[in-house]
């Protein structure tokens, strides 16, 4: 317990990914992960936190995102400039492979990072919106479990929506 207090005072946390890579993050970054903020507020935060659902590749991205947001928000710039900056950063940040995007969304859900969850959901929705059914299946690696007859019936009900 004493070592925990010591490290909390230093405001540094060690986050361990699913594949065993350890990331050192400052408290201002860590608290953006709601799961960790709750641990800190409940005084249950250990200096070493294992995140079982997130790979190192994704965790590195998540930390990059939280770092940028923490720095921008505390940087003393005016709110409008900070907003613009975050918007630009978010747009670039979302310019990733679709699989990565899905994993980021899943990680944001698991780690409870509201702004990243909102951002990834919004981006996924805009990617889905104009795709054909076959493209959506491919994008999410979804198996078509309708029979030929069933799929035909489902499509036929709103045939005009496919035009």
């Amino acid at each position, binding site marked *: 317990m004493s070592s925990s207090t010591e490290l909390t005072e230093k405001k540094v946390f060690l986050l361990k990914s699913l594949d065993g890579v350890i990331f050192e993050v400052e408290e201002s970054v860590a608290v953006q992960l709601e799961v960790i903020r709750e641990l800190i507020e409940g005084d249950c935060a250990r200096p070493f936190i294992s995140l079982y659902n997130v790979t190192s590749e994704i965790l590195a991205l998540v930390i990059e995102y939280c770092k940028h947001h923490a720095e921008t928000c505390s940087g003393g710039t005016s709110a409008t400039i900070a907003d613009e900056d975050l918007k630009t950063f978010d747009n670039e940040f979302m310019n990733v492979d679709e699989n990565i995007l*899905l994993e980021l969304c899943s990680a944001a859900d698991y780690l409870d990072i509201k702004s990243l969850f909102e951002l990834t*959901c919004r981006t996924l929705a805009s990617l889905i*919106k104009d795709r054909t059914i076959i493209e959506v299946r491919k994008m999410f690696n979804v198996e*078509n479990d309708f029979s030929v007859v069933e799929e035909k019936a489902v499509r036929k009900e*709103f045939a005009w929506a496919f035009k």
Partner: protein
Amino acid sequence: MSDYLPEEVWIDIFTRLQVKSLLRIRSVCKFFHRIINNPSFISDHITSTKRTRIPLVRYLTGRKRIERKEHYLLLPDDMDNMQELDFPFKSKSFKHFRIVGSCNGLICLSDSKGSYLCKGDSAYGIILWNPSIKKYLTLPKPLRSHGAYSFVLGFGFDLKSGSWRNCNAGAAPYGIWKWGSSAYVNGAVHWIGYSPRTEEVNHGQSRDLIVSFDINNEVFKEMNLPDDLEKWGLELSLGVLGNKLAAIQYHSWKQRMFSVWVMEEYGMVESWREMYDVDMMGKHMKFVGFTNNGDILVEIASHKLVLYDHNDLRYINVGVRGAKDSFHMETYMESLVLLDGESAVSQSKAITCEGEAR
């Protein structure tokens, strides 16, 4: 796929999609199909703050009966992107359907021989129509259970129970001016009405007021009009401005002018506020409705639809011309309600209230 995201995350993503995209991706897989068809998803999709509400204007064109066509036009804030909805129905009455109201993506239409349903009129029926998914449902004709009294229709949604059910409220203890418009605000339908004449109250004088019907608890209530309007019920229309109840007064007696009043705090009579006046510049005009930013749409004498910009005090021609008194406005939003209704896709034959195509 499900390895990646849990069901509630898919729901969150799907609530951001337009209805047309959702109708398509239902056929991706059974999992998507089940999520989108789920009534709780349909209601999340409606309440999602990302849904936009757009003014919808109805008008009639064509002089001869055979040429008559009802138009339903969406008017977004930038008037350049007006979009006409497919209207698959045909009124059996002498002109057009009466629009009872619009709520959660459904438009309630009633078909009757007269302009209004009253005793002696032959009512053909009531349709609930969802244009965004092209589905509809016909409702049974209203029952004439209250003897010699006529009746008015209202359309709204129970905010608390969130489900469809039977209402059996009985007769309103007030008179309701039949020609007047109704307004759905705060879970209740509102009409302009008048109190019964009794010697004890008002010395036998009838008083104009707002009659509301709360859809959740099925109770009629009265609400006072601002003092200035109390005697002018016959000159009033009701509308919804923002999410607030509004009363529009047409000063025919004095000068040609509209006054727009808003009830700032719902139910608080002292919160009625006169927002602005519209000078009709000596012309005949008829109130049609409010746009999202509080401007008003009026029908002018040449049967054109005109937008009055109340900030710049100028009139803008919308570019729509329709038959006299056929203009009506509701606020519309997309929704998936009535997903299992009847198909209302425009075909060569139009659909009537009785379901028969002709």
